[in-house]
């Protein structure tokens, strides 16, 4: 179809900007339209897979192939979601967990990224601290929960500490890796332009590390949530982890699933927001 016409129309000029292919005009049959159609297809398939799984699950429990008591059923899960929404528990628990996750996510990433980038400054210091970082990173986060609760109490602070701890080492390592992988020629070029080490850090290392930092952010959204939920499992009076733990202890399986669904939705929301922020802060990168 129109592809052959496009080829004919393309001028072989040596210095036309590469951007011409990424024309913002969405023509029918144009590359942009094709990507949109493909995305729609992918989304439709994802929805279908989910629908089939849910339907199979529902049918299996209705036909008693699965024990509804042990496995719940989509309709029962939905019932609990509605009930939790009505009694306000859903909103409170989500808000509490979201707050813990967000605070831990932000504190952990700010701390980790700052330290990771700062380590670029001194090869010596980074060599000295390397084993300590590896040691910290290898501690299973759940092992820290009892200490966190003893130190920070059973309220918000201990969960934030748990979320922070599960984020900080990963953030540190990704930021450090980003800073260290900057092209040496690029650093040399900055030096030939008269840049001091501070200039190089601010104008080159930090922006060049943003890609890795954002990769770390996307990864640590989930880690922060895990930290917060583990904290809630250990000791809490509210939050999604609390709801899961309580429902599980009482053998109300559909309610466990209901809280789990909300947890997943929360994780997806946070990841989506991080992606949006990344697009906003790195407009030069093709997304």
């Amino acid at each position, binding site marked *: 179809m129109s592809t052959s016409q496009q080829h004919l129309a393309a001028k072989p000029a*040596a*210095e*036309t*900007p*590469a*951007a011409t292919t*990424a024309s913002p005009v969405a023509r029918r049959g144009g590359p942009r339209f094709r990507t949109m159609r493909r995305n729609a297809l992918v989304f439709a398939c994802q929805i279908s897979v989910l629908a089939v799984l849910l339907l199979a699950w529902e049918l299996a429990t209705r036909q008693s192939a699965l024990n509804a008591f042990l496995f719940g059923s989509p309709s029962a899960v939905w019932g609990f979601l509605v009930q939790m929404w009505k009694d306000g528990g859903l909103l409170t628990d989500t808000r509490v967990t979201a707050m813990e996750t967000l605070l831990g996510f932000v504190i952990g990433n700010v701390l980790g990224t700052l330290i990771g980038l700062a380590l670029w400054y001194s090869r010596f210091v980074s060599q000295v601290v390397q084993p300590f970082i590896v040691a910290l990173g290898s501690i299973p986060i759940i092992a820290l929960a009892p200490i966190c609760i003893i130190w920070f109490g059973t309220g918000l602070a201990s969960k934030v500490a748990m979320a922070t701890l599960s984020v900080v080492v990963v953030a540190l390592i990704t930021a450090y890796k980003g800073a260290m992988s900057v*092209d040496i*020629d*690029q650093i*040399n*070029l*900055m*030096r*030939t*332009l*008269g*840049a*001091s080490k501070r*200039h190089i850090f601010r*104008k*080159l290392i930090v*922006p*060049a590390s*943003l890609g890795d930092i954002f990769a770390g952010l996307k990864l640590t959204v989930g880690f922060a949530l895990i930290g917060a939920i583990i904290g809630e499992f250990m000791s809490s009076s509210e939050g999604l982890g609390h709801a899961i733990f309580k429902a599980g202890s009482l053998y109300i399986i559909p309610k466990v699933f209901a809280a789990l669904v909300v947890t997943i939705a929360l994780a997806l929301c946070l990841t989506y927001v991080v992606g949006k922020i990344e697009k906003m802060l*790195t407009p*030069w*990168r*093709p997304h």
Partner: protein
Amino acid sequence: MNRIAANRPAADFPDPPLVVSNLRKIFGEETDAPIEVIADLSLTLGHGEIVSIVGPSGCGKSTLLNLLCGLLPRTAGEVLWYGGASIGMPERVGYMLQKDLLLPWRTALRNVTLGLEIHKMPIKERTEKARKLLDTIGLTGFHDYYPSALSGGMRQRAALARTLANEPEVLLLDEPFAALDFQTKLILENDMAHLVRSQRRSLLLITHDVEEAVSLSDRVIVLTHRPARIRAIHEIDIDVDRTDMMAARESPKFNQYVRSIWSELEVRHNA
């Protein structure tokens, strides 16, 4: 020697921009397997001169450039910029590589202002200067494009504008046009010759492209295989407008120079 160098009022800098004497570089001296990259190298770059250095691939041409800029420590020898022993990169020298090394998060314009920013020029002034420079170098209308949206030739032009923004009197270029197609390369060589000759800057060009070296330079220095020494020096005497690369290439002497330099390069067929 060449006419332009003779015309230059060299009174402000009596010393030539660059004098290299008995430069030597060995990598990994402290290890069991040191690699001698540059054995013994001396050269002089005069005011307003264009000098090219050609050599077989892997002979340490890029190492040489980094030594001259002070980006690598030298094993022995002396590098004198304007008569003074310089350790780092002198202020009046601009440096450009085959890789354009544009910062992808900066537009063409803001890439050009980078060096001026480092030297604390006020924003209005540096923006205006960069805009003018981009216009003269043929990037009118592309000031606010990110490098990812520019073609290879345009990116290299932007890199050249960034190098020129600091108003260097000496340009050190390491295969700046090697990644470009023939037409674009020729156009950029013309522009480069014009920029350098008209403002009487000096240019040291490192290249593996013999034709580029001959058509552009006043002098071509041929290096040997590693460890590099000077194998031959050719004063290029082509009696045409030296800012016109096509005219230089059409001159009968051009082929003679190219042929004799080729034969000196000892191209190894098993390389």
